[in-house]
């Protein structure tokens, strides 16, 4: 595990725009955190059902990466994707409605927590077969490349996905065809209950990625500024047409894998140890130490976030269910595509 902490140099001269940007990053991370804390609560209250995978502890990654994207870029994510969807700009309301299973959800309540979709934000799911979204991401990027569009496709995956055959096939093909795909591995050290050393004969994932001739870097995934910087470097590289890029962001999942996990495989103390490097605390401290934020501003962020979260809950609560008669709609397309 990386032990690097958030960039230490004093930032005395920071432009107002930069300051605002920092606040935006903090806002995003706090939004994801509070939103998921609420989701966990709603799960206990049986408002949300199915599998619910929380991103708590990993917020810096989605937040940092999204800063480097344009609206035309594409995002493909796993089942642990509330953070990615929120950071990409998908409305908190429609995500919450989706988790409630309401028709106003971003997938009409058919997807649930694991299958968030948003066409406008080019958010291609919410995919719950581990690693099956990697070929998708290569294909989406290939299509951009063949259409001479300067876009990148970001694909988030867990370190557990690295063992799947499709990882191998996708990295090879992405590299072979030089598709503008950014693979971001969120290495939270566990694949459900299996630590990396028990499922990978070589736990050095950047070495694995490099064996496909894919440019690969390892970063501190709890340091939002480090993630942001790495994402910018990656996207510059990708937009210059040099082929895929691989970021391994080391992080930690503070919560159980899903709501059904008794966490037999790790000690409480280990979790507590990692919580000391909570990405939100790290970044807040950094901002405070550098006089880049005031307490009141933090409170304002919290207040704003609380309002957004509450609004999403109200929206979901007050939304209707999909009509049962519509069950068989969208198995096939209703109208012809242009």
């Amino acid at each position, binding site marked *: 595990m990386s032990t690097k902490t958030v960039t230490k140099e004093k930032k005395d001269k920071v432009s107002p725009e930069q300051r605002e940007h920092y606040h935006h990053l903090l806002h995003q991370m706090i939004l994801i955190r509070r939103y998921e804390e609420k989701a966990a609560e709603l799960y206990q209250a049986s408002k949300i*059902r*199915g*599998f619910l995978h929380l991103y708590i502890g990993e917020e810096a990654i989605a937040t940092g990466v999204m800063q480097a994207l344009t609206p035309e870029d594409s995002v493909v994510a796993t089942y642990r994707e509330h953070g990615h969807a929120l950071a990409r700009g998908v409305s908190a309301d429609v995500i919450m409605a989706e988790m409630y*299973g*309401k028709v106003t959800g971003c997938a009409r*309540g*058919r*997807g*649930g927590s*694991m*299958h968030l979709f948003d066409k406008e934000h080019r958010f291609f799911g919410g*995919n*719950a*077969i*581990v*690693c099956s979204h990697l070929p998708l991401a290569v294909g989406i990027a290939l299509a951009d490349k063949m259409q001479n569009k300067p876009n990148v496709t970001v694909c988030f995956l867990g370190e*557990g*996905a690295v*063992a*799947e*055959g499709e990882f191998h096939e996708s990295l090879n093909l992405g590299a072979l065809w030089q598709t503008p795909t950014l693979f971001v591995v969120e290495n939270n050290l566990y*694949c*459900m*209950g*299996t*630590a990396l050393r*028990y*499922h*990978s004969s070589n736990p050095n994932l950047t070495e694995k990625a490099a064996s496909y001739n894919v440019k690969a870097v390892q970063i501190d995934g709890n340091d939002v500024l480090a993630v942001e910087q790495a994402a910018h470097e990656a996207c510059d590289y990708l937009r210059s047409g040099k082929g895929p890029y691989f970021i391994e962001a080391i992080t930690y999942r503070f919560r159980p894998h899903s709501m059904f*996990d*008794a966490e*037999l*495989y790790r000690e409480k103390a280990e979790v507590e140890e990692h919580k000391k490097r909570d990405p939100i605390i790290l970044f807040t401290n950094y901002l405070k130490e550098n006089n880049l934020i005031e307490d009141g501003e933090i409170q304002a962020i919290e207040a704003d976030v609380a309002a957004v979260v509450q609004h999403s809950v109200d929206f979901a609560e007050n939304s209707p*269910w*999909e009509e*049962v008669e519509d*069950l*068989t709609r969208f*198995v096939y397309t209703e109208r012809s595509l242009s």
Partner: protein
Amino acid sequence: MTLPSQNVIAEPQQLVKMTYREGMRQAIREAMLRDERCFLMGADVGRYGGCFAVSKGLFDEFGPEKIRDMPLSESAIAGIGIGASMNGMRPIVEIMTVNFSLLALDQILNTAGTLLHMSGGLFNVPVVIRMATGSGRQLGAQHAHSLEGWYAHIPGIKVLAPGTVEDMRGMLWPALEDPDPVLIFEQQVMYNMTEMVSATPVPVDIDHAKVRRPGKDVTLITYGSCLPKSMTAAETLAQEEIDTEVIDLRTLRPLDNDTIFASVAKTHRVLIVEEGWRSGSLAAEISARIMENLFYELDRPVDRLCASEVPMPYSKHMEEAAVPQPETIAAAVRKLVL
């Protein structure tokens, strides 16, 4: 290890209350104690305790060599199990759920299913592959398939589908005794279901379907998660003086024609209930067999009650609408006796 003849166990058994989950856990334990060639392999079977907690505790009891945690590599998981079974071991392979087993289908169909025949009878594949199946937990389109009936299309393999705790407890033993590949499909939604079963292991007759409820008016053929639903429906119908015979298929390949045909010849009316998609369902196969063998015995056309042909939606009301329920089962039976 050899299978005690069922007749031997004639003395009354001490009964204990057990869950469906515990039934399989005990069966695995007993198999490992009985036969040193047995071991359990699969993702998260060890330290995590099994994705559905089936193997909880076994890692501590048997250690990492016998309860082998694996990476997410479904194809290799199946293939390694097949290979090990061909060289003196008796692996119990766990592929978390049927949804992920599609990644292992090549190994199951092209390797396990072909080897004996293709080698002219030389190479047996005595592997047992277990996986969870079915819907009912709001897990959405990629986590709720019922494909065991579809698997039953494949020559060379046997397909078991325990629908009671007794069967869950008693099917593994004969499956491990079988010289050919056996797939066991466990109903996700039934893991917490309890039943009184024998305190000592009793192997189940996997060559025959079982009449779970004798009746004279209608034959209701089902298995797995639709079995308890069908039993409930049969109770309701009994109050309306409709006497339903409920057949639990138990083994989906090879099908036990005799038990089915004997019942049809008695009742002349048939409903087949299952949770698979209707087109190309196992129910279609059974209907076709009845057509071919008992056409002139039928008072009514055989009817099927299957799942809607849709990827499973997340929201509860839609998921419930997509699969047979006690009420819809009862209604379908009523139509047959009108």
